[in-house]
Protein backbone atom coordinates (compact mmCIF):
# COMPACT_ATOMS: atom_id res chain seq x y z
CA UNK A 1 0.00 0.00 0.00
CA UNK A 2 2.81 2.37 0.92
CA UNK A 3 4.52 1.96 -2.42
CA UNK A 4 1.29 2.36 -4.41
CA UNK A 5 0.26 5.51 -2.57
CA UNK A 6 3.72 7.01 -3.09
CA UNK A 7 3.42 6.31 -6.82
CA UNK A 8 -0.01 7.93 -6.89
CA UNK A 9 1.24 11.03 -5.12
CA UNK A 10 -0.83 10.37 -2.01
CA UNK A 11 2.08 9.67 0.31
CA UNK A 12 5.74 10.63 0.54
CA UNK A 13 8.55 9.73 2.85
CA UNK A 14 8.94 13.37 3.86
CA UNK A 15 5.32 13.28 5.06
CA UNK A 16 6.23 10.27 7.21
CA UNK A 17 9.26 12.20 8.46
CA UNK A 18 7.00 15.07 9.51
CA UNK A 19 4.78 12.69 11.50
CA UNK A 20 7.87 11.32 13.18
CA UNK A 21 9.19 14.79 14.02
CA UNK A 22 5.87 15.85 15.49
CA UNK A 23 4.61 12.79 17.34
CA UNK A 24 7.90 11.11 18.23
CA UNK A 25 9.65 14.28 19.29
CA UNK A 26 7.74 17.54 19.60
CA UNK A 27 4.33 16.45 20.93
CA UNK A 28 3.88 14.25 23.97
CA UNK A 29 2.94 14.23 27.65
CA UNK A 30 5.65 16.80 28.41
CA UNK A 31 3.34 19.42 26.91
CA UNK A 32 0.43 18.40 29.11
CA UNK A 33 2.79 18.39 32.10
CA UNK A 34 3.76 21.98 31.31
CA UNK A 35 0.08 22.98 31.35
CA UNK A 36 -0.51 21.17 34.66
CA UNK A 37 2.53 22.76 36.30
CA UNK A 38 1.32 26.19 35.21
CA UNK A 39 -2.14 25.46 36.64
CA UNK A 40 -0.57 24.40 39.96
CA UNK A 41 1.38 27.62 40.27
CA UNK A 42 -1.00 30.16 38.72
CA UNK A 43 -4.58 30.12 40.10
CA UNK A 44 -5.84 32.47 37.40
CA UNK A 45 -4.47 30.20 34.68
CA UNK A 46 -6.00 27.21 36.40
CA UNK A 47 -9.40 28.92 36.41
CA UNK A 48 -9.05 29.65 32.69
CA UNK A 49 -7.90 26.08 32.01
CA UNK A 50 -10.94 24.58 33.72
CA UNK A 51 -13.26 27.04 32.00
CA UNK A 52 -11.84 26.57 28.49
CA UNK A 53 -9.08 24.00 28.17
CA UNK A 54 -8.47 24.69 24.50
CA UNK A 55 -7.94 28.43 24.93
CA UNK A 56 -5.75 28.05 28.01
CA UNK A 57 -3.49 25.51 26.26
CA UNK A 58 -3.22 27.84 23.29
CA UNK A 59 -1.83 30.50 25.66
CA UNK A 60 1.15 28.17 26.08
CA UNK A 61 1.36 27.53 22.34
CA UNK A 62 -0.25 24.10 22.62
CA UNK A 63 -2.99 23.13 20.16
CA UNK A 64 -3.65 20.81 17.26
CA UNK A 65 -5.37 17.85 15.70
CA UNK A 66 -7.50 15.77 18.11
CA UNK A 67 -7.52 18.66 20.55
CA UNK A 68 -9.74 21.14 18.78
CA UNK A 69 -11.95 21.23 21.89
CA UNK A 70 -10.36 20.12 25.13
CA UNK A 71 -12.05 19.88 28.53
CA UNK A 72 -9.81 19.57 31.58
CA UNK A 73 -11.14 17.72 34.64
CA UNK A 74 -9.81 18.59 38.07
CA UNK A 75 -9.05 15.86 40.57
CA UNK A 76 -9.77 16.78 44.19
CA UNK A 77 -9.76 15.01 47.55
CA UNK A 78 -13.33 13.89 46.84
CA UNK A 79 -13.43 13.29 43.07
CA UNK A 80 -11.07 11.33 40.84
CA UNK A 81 -11.44 11.53 37.05
CA UNK A 82 -10.34 8.98 34.46
CA UNK A 83 -10.61 9.08 30.65
CA UNK A 84 -11.35 6.37 28.11
CA UNK A 85 -12.74 5.87 24.63
CA UNK A 86 -14.78 2.66 24.74
CA UNK A 87 -15.69 2.83 21.01
CA UNK A 88 -12.27 3.50 19.49
CA UNK A 89 -9.24 5.32 20.92
CA UNK A 90 -9.96 9.04 21.17
CA UNK A 91 -7.22 10.79 23.13
CA UNK A 92 -6.05 14.42 23.47
CA UNK A 93 -3.05 14.30 21.13
CA UNK A 94 -1.82 17.91 21.53
CA UNK A 95 -1.19 17.51 25.26
CA UNK A 96 -0.51 13.77 25.64
CA UNK A 97 0.80 12.70 22.23
CA UNK A 98 -0.40 9.43 20.71
CA UNK A 99 -1.90 6.94 23.17
CA UNK A 100 -0.09 3.87 24.55
CA UNK A 101 -1.32 0.46 23.44
CA UNK A 102 -3.04 -0.33 26.74
CA UNK A 103 -5.33 2.67 26.23
CA UNK A 104 -6.37 1.26 22.84
CA UNK A 105 -6.64 -2.39 23.88
CA UNK A 106 -9.95 -4.08 24.75
CA UNK A 107 -9.08 -4.70 28.42
CA UNK A 108 -8.87 -1.04 29.43
CA UNK A 109 -11.72 0.10 27.16
CA UNK A 110 -14.12 -2.59 28.39
CA UNK A 111 -13.26 -2.53 32.07
CA UNK A 112 -12.64 1.06 33.16
CA UNK A 113 -16.31 2.01 32.82
CA UNK A 114 -17.36 -1.16 34.66
CA UNK A 115 -14.80 -1.47 37.45
CA UNK A 116 -12.66 1.68 37.57
CA UNK A 117 -11.23 0.98 41.03
CA UNK A 118 -9.88 -2.40 39.99
CA UNK A 119 -8.37 -0.97 36.83
CA UNK A 120 -6.76 1.87 38.77
CA UNK A 121 -5.40 -0.66 41.28
CA UNK A 122 -3.67 -2.54 38.44
CA UNK A 123 -1.77 0.69 37.77
CA UNK A 124 -0.85 0.87 41.46
CA UNK A 125 -3.45 3.51 42.23
CA UNK A 126 -5.60 2.66 45.23
CA UNK A 127 -8.69 4.86 45.30
CA UNK A 128 -10.58 4.77 48.62
CA UNK A 129 -14.26 3.91 48.42
CA UNK A 130 -15.25 7.38 49.64
CA UNK A 131 -13.60 9.02 46.62
CA UNK A 132 -16.11 9.35 43.79
CA UNK A 133 -14.74 8.15 40.48
CA UNK A 134 -15.88 9.83 37.28
CA UNK A 135 -14.98 7.99 34.10
CA UNK A 136 -15.25 10.15 30.98
CA UNK A 137 -15.95 8.21 27.78
CA UNK A 138 -14.80 10.40 24.87
CA UNK A 139 -17.45 9.42 22.34
CA UNK A 140 -17.66 12.78 20.53
CA UNK A 141 -14.90 15.14 19.34
CA UNK A 142 -14.52 16.75 22.76
CA UNK A 143 -11.23 15.63 24.26
CA UNK A 144 -11.14 15.22 28.02
CA UNK A 145 -8.03 14.99 30.17
CA UNK A 146 -7.20 15.16 33.84
CA UNK A 147 -5.64 17.85 36.00
CA UNK A 148 -4.03 15.75 38.75
CA UNK A 149 -3.70 16.96 42.31
CA UNK A 150 -0.49 18.73 43.23
CA UNK A 151 1.53 16.44 45.48
CA UNK A 152 2.12 17.47 49.07
CA UNK A 153 5.48 18.91 49.98
CA UNK A 154 6.12 20.61 46.66
CA UNK A 155 5.71 24.21 47.79
CA UNK A 156 9.25 25.29 46.99
CA UNK A 157 9.50 23.70 43.55
CA UNK A 158 9.79 25.64 40.31
CA UNK A 159 7.34 25.17 37.45
CA UNK A 160 9.86 22.99 35.58
CA UNK A 161 10.46 20.84 38.65
CA UNK A 162 6.72 20.45 39.10
CA UNK A 163 6.23 19.50 35.46
CA UNK A 164 8.69 16.64 35.95
CA UNK A 165 6.24 15.14 38.47
CA UNK A 166 3.36 15.08 35.97
CA UNK A 167 3.17 11.78 34.11
CA UNK A 168 1.07 10.73 31.14
CA UNK A 169 -0.78 8.29 33.38
CA UNK A 170 -1.66 11.02 35.88
CA UNK A 171 -3.34 13.00 33.08
CA UNK A 172 -5.30 9.92 31.96
CA UNK A 173 -6.32 9.34 35.57
CA UNK A 174 -4.71 5.94 36.20
CA UNK A 175 -2.08 7.46 38.50
CA UNK A 176 -1.44 10.42 40.75
CA UNK A 177 1.31 12.88 40.00
CA UNK A 178 4.65 11.68 41.36
CA UNK A 179 5.71 12.53 44.87
CA UNK A 180 8.91 14.55 44.94
CA UNK A 181 11.38 11.71 45.30
CA UNK A 182 10.19 8.61 47.14
CA UNK A 183 7.75 7.06 44.68
CA UNK A 184 8.41 6.09 41.10
CA UNK A 185 5.01 4.94 39.83
Amino acid at each position, binding site marked *: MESLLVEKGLLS*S*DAVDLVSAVYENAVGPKLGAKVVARAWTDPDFKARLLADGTAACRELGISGMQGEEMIVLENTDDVHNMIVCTLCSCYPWPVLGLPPNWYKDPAYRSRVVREPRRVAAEFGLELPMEV*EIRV*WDSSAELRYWVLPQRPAGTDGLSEDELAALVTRDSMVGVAQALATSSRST
Partner: protein
Amino acid sequence: MHGVHDLGGVEGFGPVVQEPDEPVFHDDWERVVFTMVQTLAIHGLFVSDKFRYGVEQMPAVRYLTSTYYEHWLFSLTKHAIDAGIVDADELADRTRYYREHPDEVVPPSSRPELVDRLRLMIEGDEGSRREVTGEARFAVGDVVRVLDHASVTHTRRARYVRGRVGTVLLTHGAHVFPDTSALEMGEDPEFVYAVEFLGDVLWQSDDRSANSRVIIDLWESYLEPVDHATTERSRSVG
Protein backbone atom coordinates in the same frame (compact mmCIF):
# COMPACT_ATOMS: atom_id res chain seq x y z
CA MET B 1 -23.42 -0.85 14.69
CA HIS B 2 -23.75 -3.63 17.22
CA GLY B 3 -20.11 -4.64 16.82
CA VAL B 4 -17.21 -5.90 18.91
CA HIS B 5 -15.56 -2.48 18.83
CA ASP B 6 -18.31 -1.34 21.23
CA LEU B 7 -16.45 -2.58 24.28
CA GLY B 8 -17.74 -0.71 27.33
CA GLY B 9 -18.61 -3.18 30.07
CA VAL B 10 -17.82 -6.33 28.08
CA GLU B 11 -16.35 -8.96 30.39
CA GLY B 12 -13.45 -11.32 29.92
CA PHE B 13 -10.49 -9.33 28.58
CA GLY B 14 -8.24 -9.88 31.57
CA PRO B 15 -5.75 -7.46 33.05
CA VAL B 16 -4.62 -4.23 31.41
CA VAL B 17 -1.20 -4.97 29.95
CA GLN B 18 1.24 -2.09 30.21
CA GLU B 19 4.51 -1.85 28.36
CA PRO B 20 7.31 -0.04 30.18
CA ASP B 21 9.03 2.69 28.13
CA GLU B 22 6.66 2.06 25.26
CA PRO B 23 7.69 3.71 21.97
CA VAL B 24 5.23 5.92 20.05
CA PHE B 25 5.41 3.51 17.12
CA HIS B 26 6.42 -0.11 17.56
CA ASP B 27 7.64 -0.58 14.01
CA ASP B 28 8.31 1.52 10.90
CA TRP B 29 5.12 0.32 9.23
CA GLU B 30 2.99 1.76 12.03
CA ARG B 31 4.44 5.21 11.37
CA VAL B 32 3.64 4.79 7.67
CA VAL B 33 0.07 3.63 8.37
CA PHE B 34 -0.49 6.60 10.66
CA THR B 35 0.76 8.93 7.93
CA MET B 36 -1.29 7.27 5.18
CA VAL B 37 -4.49 7.80 7.17
CA GLN B 38 -3.71 11.51 7.47
CA THR B 39 -2.71 12.00 3.84
CA LEU B 40 -5.74 10.08 2.56
CA ALA B 41 -7.95 12.24 4.78
CA ILE B 42 -6.26 15.29 3.23
CA HIS B 43 -7.07 13.80 -0.18
CA GLY B 44 -10.73 13.68 0.91
CA LEU B 45 -11.07 9.90 1.04
CA PHE B 46 -12.68 9.96 4.48
CA VAL B 47 -13.59 12.04 7.50
CA SER B 48 -13.02 10.56 10.93
CA ASP B 49 -16.55 9.10 11.23
CA LYS B 50 -16.27 7.28 7.91
CA PHE B 51 -12.79 6.08 8.84
CA ARG B 52 -14.01 4.73 12.19
CA TYR B 53 -16.90 2.99 10.45
CA GLY B 54 -14.33 1.30 8.23
CA VAL B 55 -12.52 -0.01 11.31
CA GLU B 56 -15.83 -1.28 12.72
CA GLN B 57 -16.40 -3.35 9.58
CA MET B 58 -13.29 -5.40 10.24
CA PRO B 59 -14.27 -9.04 10.87
CA ALA B 60 -14.94 -9.35 14.60
CA VAL B 61 -12.39 -12.03 15.43
CA ARG B 62 -9.67 -10.15 13.55
CA TYR B 63 -10.59 -6.90 15.30
CA LEU B 64 -10.04 -8.45 18.71
CA THR B 65 -6.82 -10.25 17.80
CA SER B 66 -5.04 -7.50 15.86
CA THR B 67 -3.34 -4.28 16.87
CA TYR B 68 -4.55 -0.72 16.62
CA TYR B 69 -2.59 0.13 13.48
CA GLU B 70 -3.80 -3.09 11.84
CA HIS B 71 -7.31 -1.71 12.39
CA TRP B 72 -6.21 1.51 10.72
CA LEU B 73 -4.62 -0.37 7.83
CA PHE B 74 -7.81 -2.35 7.32
CA SER B 75 -9.98 0.78 7.15
CA LEU B 76 -7.68 2.80 4.91
CA THR B 77 -7.26 -0.15 2.54
CA LYS B 78 -11.00 -0.79 2.39
CA HIS B 79 -11.75 2.85 1.63
CA ALA B 80 -8.92 3.18 -0.90
CA ILE B 81 -10.18 0.12 -2.80
CA ASP B 82 -13.86 1.13 -2.52
CA ALA B 83 -13.04 4.56 -3.93
CA GLY B 84 -10.93 3.13 -6.75
CA ILE B 85 -7.77 4.86 -5.56
CA VAL B 86 -6.08 1.48 -5.40
CA ASP B 87 -7.07 -1.62 -7.31
CA ALA B 88 -7.38 -4.78 -5.21
CA ASP B 89 -5.39 -6.90 -7.71
CA GLU B 90 -2.72 -4.24 -8.01
CA LEU B 91 -2.42 -4.17 -4.22
CA ALA B 92 -2.22 -7.98 -4.01
CA ASP B 93 0.52 -8.04 -6.67
CA ARG B 94 2.53 -5.33 -4.99
CA THR B 95 2.17 -6.94 -1.57
CA ARG B 96 3.36 -10.27 -3.03
CA TYR B 97 6.37 -8.50 -4.59
CA TYR B 98 7.46 -7.04 -1.27
CA ARG B 99 6.88 -10.37 0.50
CA GLU B 100 9.19 -12.01 -2.03
CA HIS B 101 11.74 -9.20 -1.72
CA PRO B 102 11.76 -8.53 2.03
CA ASP B 103 14.95 -6.45 1.88
CA GLU B 104 13.56 -4.01 -0.62
CA VAL B 105 12.24 -0.74 0.75
CA VAL B 106 10.06 1.95 -0.79
CA PRO B 107 12.50 4.60 -2.04
CA PRO B 108 12.49 8.05 -0.39
CA SER B 109 10.14 10.58 -1.92
CA SER B 110 9.40 14.26 -1.44
CA ARG B 111 6.10 16.12 -1.84
CA PRO B 112 6.46 19.56 -0.25
CA GLU B 113 2.83 20.48 -0.97
CA LEU B 114 1.58 17.34 0.79
CA VAL B 115 3.87 18.02 3.74
CA ASP B 116 2.53 21.58 3.99
CA ARG B 117 -1.04 20.35 4.02
CA LEU B 118 -0.20 17.69 6.58
CA ARG B 119 1.42 20.31 8.78
CA LEU B 120 -1.76 22.40 8.60
CA MET B 121 -3.83 19.36 9.48
CA ILE B 122 -1.66 18.57 12.50
CA GLU B 123 -2.06 22.17 13.66
CA GLY B 124 -5.78 21.45 13.97
CA ASP B 125 -8.85 22.29 11.95
CA GLU B 126 -12.30 23.65 12.69
CA GLY B 127 -13.23 20.53 14.64
CA SER B 128 -16.76 19.13 14.63
CA ARG B 129 -18.65 22.10 16.12
CA ARG B 130 -21.18 23.75 13.83
CA GLU B 131 -23.45 26.75 14.18
CA VAL B 132 -27.13 25.82 14.06
CA THR B 133 -30.25 27.96 14.30
CA GLY B 134 -32.43 25.70 16.48
CA GLU B 135 -32.40 25.53 20.25
CA ALA B 136 -31.11 22.69 22.36
CA ARG B 137 -33.84 20.31 23.50
CA PHE B 138 -32.17 19.49 26.81
CA ALA B 139 -30.53 21.55 29.54
CA VAL B 140 -28.09 20.73 32.33
CA GLY B 141 -29.89 18.69 34.98
CA ASP B 142 -32.44 17.17 32.61
CA VAL B 143 -33.03 13.46 33.03
CA VAL B 144 -32.79 11.52 29.77
CA ARG B 145 -32.90 7.97 28.51
CA VAL B 146 -30.73 6.67 25.67
CA LEU B 147 -32.74 5.09 22.86
CA ASP B 148 -32.37 1.35 23.05
CA HIS B 149 -32.56 0.01 19.50
CA ALA B 150 -29.37 -1.24 17.88
CA SER B 151 -27.95 0.66 14.93
CA VAL B 152 -26.86 -1.36 11.89
CA THR B 153 -24.39 1.30 10.73
CA HIS B 154 -21.99 3.70 12.46
CA THR B 155 -23.09 5.28 15.72
CA ARG B 156 -21.54 6.64 18.89
CA ARG B 157 -24.51 5.47 20.96
CA ALA B 158 -22.50 2.95 22.97
CA ARG B 159 -24.26 -0.28 23.84
CA TYR B 160 -23.66 -0.04 27.61
CA VAL B 161 -25.73 3.15 27.92
CA ARG B 162 -28.54 2.11 25.57
CA GLY B 163 -31.87 2.16 27.43
CA ARG B 164 -30.22 3.62 30.51
CA VAL B 165 -31.28 6.77 32.33
CA GLY B 166 -28.82 9.54 33.07
CA THR B 167 -28.58 13.26 33.74
CA VAL B 168 -27.31 15.97 31.41
CA LEU B 169 -24.09 17.27 32.97
CA LEU B 170 -22.71 19.56 30.24
CA THR B 171 -23.98 20.96 26.96
CA HIS B 172 -21.44 21.07 24.15
CA GLY B 173 -23.25 23.00 21.40
CA ALA B 174 -23.98 21.41 18.04
CA HIS B 175 -21.59 18.99 16.35
CA VAL B 176 -21.45 16.94 13.16
CA PHE B 177 -23.68 13.86 13.53
CA PRO B 178 -21.50 10.73 13.18
CA ASP B 179 -24.33 8.42 12.15
CA THR B 180 -24.91 10.33 8.89
CA SER B 181 -21.39 11.69 8.42
CA ALA B 182 -19.93 8.17 8.41
CA LEU B 183 -22.23 7.26 5.50
CA GLU B 184 -21.52 10.51 3.62
CA MET B 185 -25.18 11.42 4.06
CA GLY B 186 -24.44 14.89 5.43
CA GLU B 187 -23.09 16.53 8.55
CA ASP B 188 -26.60 17.09 10.02
CA PRO B 189 -25.21 18.82 13.13
CA GLU B 190 -27.01 18.15 16.38
CA PHE B 191 -26.59 19.29 19.97
CA VAL B 192 -24.28 17.10 22.01
CA TYR B 193 -24.50 16.59 25.75
CA ALA B 194 -22.23 15.02 28.33
CA VAL B 195 -24.64 12.69 30.10
CA GLU B 196 -23.79 11.25 33.51
CA PHE B 197 -24.80 7.73 34.52
CA LEU B 198 -24.43 6.31 38.01
CA GLY B 199 -22.44 3.10 38.17
CA ASP B 200 -25.36 1.54 40.02
CA VAL B 201 -27.69 2.40 37.12
CA LEU B 202 -25.39 1.05 34.43
CA TRP B 203 -24.35 -2.12 36.19
CA GLN B 204 -25.64 -4.21 39.02
CA SER B 205 -25.01 -2.47 42.33
CA ASP B 206 -21.81 -4.15 43.39
CA ASP B 207 -18.36 -3.29 44.68
CA ARG B 208 -16.92 -3.18 41.18
CA SER B 209 -18.81 -0.03 40.25
CA ALA B 210 -19.43 1.43 43.72
CA ASN B 211 -19.31 5.21 44.02
CA SER B 212 -18.48 5.62 40.34
CA ARG B 213 -20.12 7.45 37.48
CA VAL B 214 -19.62 7.36 33.77
CA ILE B 215 -19.96 10.46 31.65
CA ILE B 216 -20.36 9.98 27.92
CA ASP B 217 -21.07 12.47 25.12
CA LEU B 218 -24.35 11.78 23.33
CA TRP B 219 -26.08 13.45 20.40
CA GLU B 220 -29.59 14.83 20.88
CA SER B 221 -31.36 12.28 18.69
CA TYR B 222 -29.88 9.48 20.82
CA LEU B 223 -31.91 10.74 23.79
CA GLU B 224 -35.48 11.01 24.99
CA PRO B 225 -36.75 12.94 28.02
CA VAL B 226 -37.64 11.11 31.22
CA ASP B 227 -39.66 12.40 34.15
CA HIS B 228 -38.11 12.12 37.58
CA ALA B 229 -40.59 9.56 38.92
CA THR B 230 -39.49 7.14 36.21
CA THR B 231 -35.88 7.87 37.05
CA GLU B 232 -36.25 6.87 40.67
CA ARG B 233 -37.94 3.65 39.64
CA SER B 234 -35.16 2.88 37.17
CA ARG B 235 -32.50 3.54 39.81
CA SER B 236 -34.14 1.27 42.34
CA VAL B 237 -34.29 -1.49 39.74
CA GLY B 238 -30.59 -0.95 39.04
